[in-house]
Structures are given as structure tokens and as C-alpha cells.
């Protein structure tokens, strides 16, 4: 980008812009597969953009591009300097820059998904970056993970427990995970998925659609 790139400084109040959805969770839990599923299911009806935060350069972005679920230009990758949690929580500047670049190039958008680099249970998105966040676990990480909690599990707007098809093979009790998650999350929702069995992630996509509708209703552009 050169010196004449247009000024795309946005007001922080959220009016007139897309819902920003963070997708976080441990390595291998299925974040990228979920993002691909959401693009597949919501792409026909919503204008989307995706920002990935890879641990190693553009691996996840390349996966999404190859999956063909979204125009390549609508997927941007952010490098995180060995610290994926810093880039989504403490210093969100590069991610905000990527989000606003997508909005300027392709806007108005309905939804921008920011996928975190795989991290641990303490990683959450700054409210300055993500308006809503999904935390993705998988059953093969063990059915004790919801009980262990951590900010991702306890505070995410939606907890997704993925790879339910593996539960019998790894001896994970979905009932225990559901009960423990409810205990630490109160009324916040939990959805069980197997993106391998349902590549549309229909239940998660329905939740995201509701969030987008509520956001656009509450944050319509100022009439000015």
C-alpha cells in the first residue's frame, strides 16, 4: 500500500458497519472448518469478509481460499509475531486495519469474521475488535475442558463443541460437557456440532444470522 491509500479510520461506535465476529479456540478444534462452513452457508445471503490470524503466515487463509467458499480477495491474513492472543486482545491494531480494509474494498459488508490463531483457553477477543465471539472446543480435547473454564469458555457469546462424531472413540461424555458448560456459562448458549457430518454448520450459522440481524437493526448507519 502506498502513501495515497485512502484514510479508512472508522468511528469506534459501530454505526454503519458490519458485525465483527471473533472465532477463537485451541489449535485443531475446528475454527477454520467452522469459518469455511459459515461462509458456505451464509455467503449466498450475506456480504462477508474474513480475517485470519495464523501462527505460521497464511496457512488458514490458504485453506479457506482453496475451499472456494469465498472470493479470495475477501480473505486477509494477519501475522501475529508468535503471539496470537496479543493480536486479538492486547494490540488489535493490525486486525482492525485488516477489517477496515475489507470494509473499504467490498463494503458495505454484513459480517466480518476474525479467526484467531490457535491458542489456549485464556485467549479471548477484545471488545474493541469483536462485537460477538464464538469459542470452539472439540470433544477430543477431553470432556473436562468445559469444567476447567477459562475466559474463552465462560465468556464467549457462543460456545461450540465440535467433532461430536468422535465422542465414542475418545470416550468423551457429551452430557458431562453440556452440564459443565452450562454451570460456568449460565444462560449463554452452547451448540454441539460435527462439521464433518454437517459441512453447513446449520445450527451455528442460524445463531450467527440472528446476531447479524440484531446488529444491523441496532447499528444502522446514521442518517446524515
Amino acid at each position, binding site marked *: 500500500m502506498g502513501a495515497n491509500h485512502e484514510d479508512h*479510520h472508522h468511528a469506534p461506535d459501530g454505526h454503519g458497519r458490519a458485525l465483527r465476529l471473533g472465532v477463537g479456540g485451541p489449535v485443531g478444534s475446528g475454527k477454520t472448518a467452522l469459518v469455511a462452513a459459515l461462509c458456505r452457508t451464509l455467503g449466498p445471503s450475506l456480504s462477508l469478509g474474513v480475517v485470519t490470524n495464523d501462527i505460521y*503466515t497464511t496457512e488458514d487463509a490458504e485453506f479457506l481460499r482453496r475451499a472456494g467458499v469465498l472470493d479470495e480477495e475477501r480473505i486477509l491474513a494477519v*501475522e501475529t509475531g*508468535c*503471539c496470537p492472543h*496479543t493480536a486479538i486482545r492486547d*494490540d488489535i491494531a493490525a486486525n482492525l*486495519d485488516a477489517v477496515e480494509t475489507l470494509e473499504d474494498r467490498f463494503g458495505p459488508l454484513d459480517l466480518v469474521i476474525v479467526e484467531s490463531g490457535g491458542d489456549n483457553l485464556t485467549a479471548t477477543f477484545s471488545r474493541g475488535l469483536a462485537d460477538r465471539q464464538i469459542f470452539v472446543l472439540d470433544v477430543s480435547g477431553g470432556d473436562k475442558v468445559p469444567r476447567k473454564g477459562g475466559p474463552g469458555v465462560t465468556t464467549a457469546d457462543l460456545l461450540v463443541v465440535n467433532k461430536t462424531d468422535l465422542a465414542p472413540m475418545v470416550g468423551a461424555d457429551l452430557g458431562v460437557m453440556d452440564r459443565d458448560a452450562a454451570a460456568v456459562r449460565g444462560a449463554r448458549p452452547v451448540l454441539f456440532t460435527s462439521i464433518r457430518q454437517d459441512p453447513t454448520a446449520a445450527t451455528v450459522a442460524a445463531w450467527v444470522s440472528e446476531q447479524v440481524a440484531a446488529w444491523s437493526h441496532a447499528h444502522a448507519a446514521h442518517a446524515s
Partner: protein
Amino acid sequence: MDPAVNPAVNPAVNPALLLLADSRLPAGGHAHSGGVEQAVTSGAVHDVPSLAGFLRGRLHTAGTVAAALTAAACACAAGPPPPEPAWGLLDAEVDARTAAPAQREASRTQGRLLLRVARRVWPSPVLEGLARAVPNPHHPIALGAAAHAAGATPEEAAMAAAYHAVGGAATAAVRLLGLDPVAVHGLLAGLAPDLAAVAGAARSGGDWESLPAHSSPALDLLAEQHARADVRLFIS
């Protein structure tokens, strides 16, 4: 903040300087290694002594140039004359002193992100004017303007720039090589006289054309190699 205050008489540190120099300033700096990642890949930096040489070289080339340009930007922001028509010219002076395209790109990325943060943290007509004139400014331009908006002097801005030139690179080496962080901070402390000298030299000012233009071909090459690397943890 009275810029005329003599630091020898009043040694109080400007708190704005601490904020600007702090690696926790949320302006995207944490993901830039200043060439260290590629230097680690190539083996040039592999332990604390080799990092010491890298940091010293970086400070006395890229750091010295950045400090002088940052001080010039801070002085330009203070005016007179009104800075807005001049921003493009000073920004071009940075371009002229930054040989590697990858370094120009990294500088503009960091400048744009710093300007974004500064406009919210230190709202100022000067920063709005800079954003209008050069939305994607080089980092020294953004840092100098932000320092002025925060109430800092050109010398203080130069100190922040000099520290920026080595602080991020040192942290990147700790992350990439698992070096003893106390030993690495010892290196930074050992550079304190050099930092003071670089910042002090930056205050002399003069015509922009006569600002320092030290080249560092090794850093240029590292930046270009890094931009072409398949596997990369840092942006630069």
C-alpha cells in the same frame, strides 16, 4: 508541557514519552521484528552476543535515520508554518532513505496503525491534518506527529524512535530463540548511552535534505528475503 524546559535542570521524564515508547502501545508493533526473524532464519542472530551486534548496528543505521526523521516530523507538527502542506515532502524524505520496498511497506503499515491509535488517544488537529495529507504515513512521520500531539518535544520523539528501532527487535529475538529475557534487557540497558547520543544528535535539525541517510544493506536484504519467505511469524 513547555518545550523550553531544560532537562538538565528539570530531569522529569515526560509521561507521554513513556507511553509512546512502551511496547504495550497497541499500535501493532509487537508483530514486527525489524529484520530479526530473517536474521534468525539465516543464522546471523543465534545468541545474545550476536543479537547485541545486530541491535547496535540497527540503532546506528536505521535507528539513527528514524530518530532524525521523527524529530523533524515533531518539529514540523509544532509549526509554524502550518504542517499540512509539508507532510508529503517529509514523507518523501523517508522514502528516499528507505531502500528496500519491504521496509517501506513495513514502515507505512506501522505508521498507519500508530496514527490510528494516536488519533483516538491524543485527538488533535495536527493528526487529522496528517491523516488528510498522508493517510498512510511512514512510521517516523506518524511518531513525530503523535509525539507533538501528546505534548512531547522533538528530542523526546527522537528518543522514542531510537528505542523503537531496537526494542521490538530485541523482544522478537526473545520469542524466536528463547533467549534469556533478562540478558536481552541487559543489552538494551547497555545501549542507553547510544540511545541518548542518537536522540541528542537528532535534535540538531537543519534542512530535511541534510538529515542522516545511513544505509544498512544487510537490513535491506533481510527485509527483502523475509518478505519472500514461505513461513513467517512476524510481519517484518
